């Protein structure tokens, strides 16, 4: 997959995020941030620092849409910082990592571990920075768990359908 396709997918995912998932104000604790799908599936061919700068830009765009200047930026940079180390730990067969990171490339077990860990780290960072106080810690954890579950299902589901 080349970079124009990556950009196309980012635009579609961002539209889904803003038009559909941001409108879901159902349970009060469910704010899935599915836009990180693009960051999670990005190839790891670029230098690590460029990866983090892309993360910062994508986070900043999300911040503008939800009035939370800096919060998504911080979370996405953290996510992109951890990503290569995490792949190094959980993926055994590194020959197949030249393309993007998909279910087909790294296998079911590694993919599930990879997605769960990074989504929960990202969501916890966003909600904790948003609350900015220990008083709401229970609420933050609940929000992370429920929203994370939705995001994880969307990302794994997308992979299961497209990259079986």
């Amino acid at each position, binding site marked *: 997959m080349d970079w124009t396709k990556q950009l196309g997918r980012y635009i579609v995912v961002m539209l889904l995020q803003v*038009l559909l998932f941001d409108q879901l104000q159902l349970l009060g604790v469910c*704010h899935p941030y599915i836009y990180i799908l693009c960051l999670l599936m990005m190839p790891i061919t670029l230098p*690590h620092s460029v990866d983090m700068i892309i993360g910062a830009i994508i*986070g900043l765009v999300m911040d503008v849409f939800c009035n939370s200047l800096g919060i998504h930026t911080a979370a996405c*940079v953290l996510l992109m910082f951890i990503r290569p180390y995490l792949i190094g730990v959980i993926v055994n067969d590194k020959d197949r990592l030249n393309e993007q990171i998909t279910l087909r490339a790294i296998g079911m077990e590694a993919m599930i571990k990879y997605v769960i860990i990074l989504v929960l780290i990202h969501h916890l960072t966003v909600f904790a920075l948003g609350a900015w106080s220990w008083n*709401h810690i229970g609420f933050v954890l609940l929000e992370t768990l429920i929203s994370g579950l939705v995001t994880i299902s969307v990302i794994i589901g997308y992979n299961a359908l497209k990259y079986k």
Partner: protein
Amino acid sequence: MQTLIKILLRYGNFLVFFALEVAAFMLISMNNAFPRSSMLSTANEFVAWQHEQISNITGYFSLRTQNEKLAEENAALRNYICSMDSAKNREDIHYLNAKVVQMTTDELHNYLTINRGSKDGIVRGQGLRNEEGVVGIVRTVGHNYSVVMPIINTNTNISCRFTKNDYIGTLQWDGKDIRFALLADVASHMVVNPGDTIITSGLSPVFPEGIPVGIVESSLLKEGASYYTIKVRLHTDFKRLKYIEVVQNAHQNELEELTNGLD
């Protein structure tokens, strides 16, 4: 010099990570301390335009309730004509109608965006009300749109008073239920009963005196505490908020300059 380059090469990635995180945290703290640039918030023309389109589509689904609300408002306005409410009858206060194009209600820091900006004379710090009661305070102003901090944002403080004895308190929100807010700074010697009416105090230039805020739902005085914990049922229904009025005080600048001079 060579060792410096070696260090940079070795820890370059971590330094980039650190620099980006520092920048992000600076943005977050800026966000809390200063008025944000209108480019980087929902007052941004494109983002607000997009929210307005969504709101135009979803608006059709609430036409029936909106009609009912307009009818109620008509009735309320007729009552106003009869009673000549003192808050509505001041020459230095001007009301400008506006429409909510985007809002969140289920976060700790909720915001709403309105379709009025600096071209309509909106400035930071103006108050907003609707026919039910107080809504919030203008936070960030763009050319065509503005972002508002409603009562249901944990950073909002609004000065209020009891109608029965003019006792003053500060209205805040605890982030739990959008139907209720808390009234702080009410000392324990006061007698608070459920059903007491709360209105704006008129002590700040943001709101004139007498805009309805809510009714006391319950009050709690913890043992040894010198202040009440008062739960106020808000008149404003934030789940159905659509049309609001901006309170434009002709003397706001003068009043603010006077109080700023005291610091």
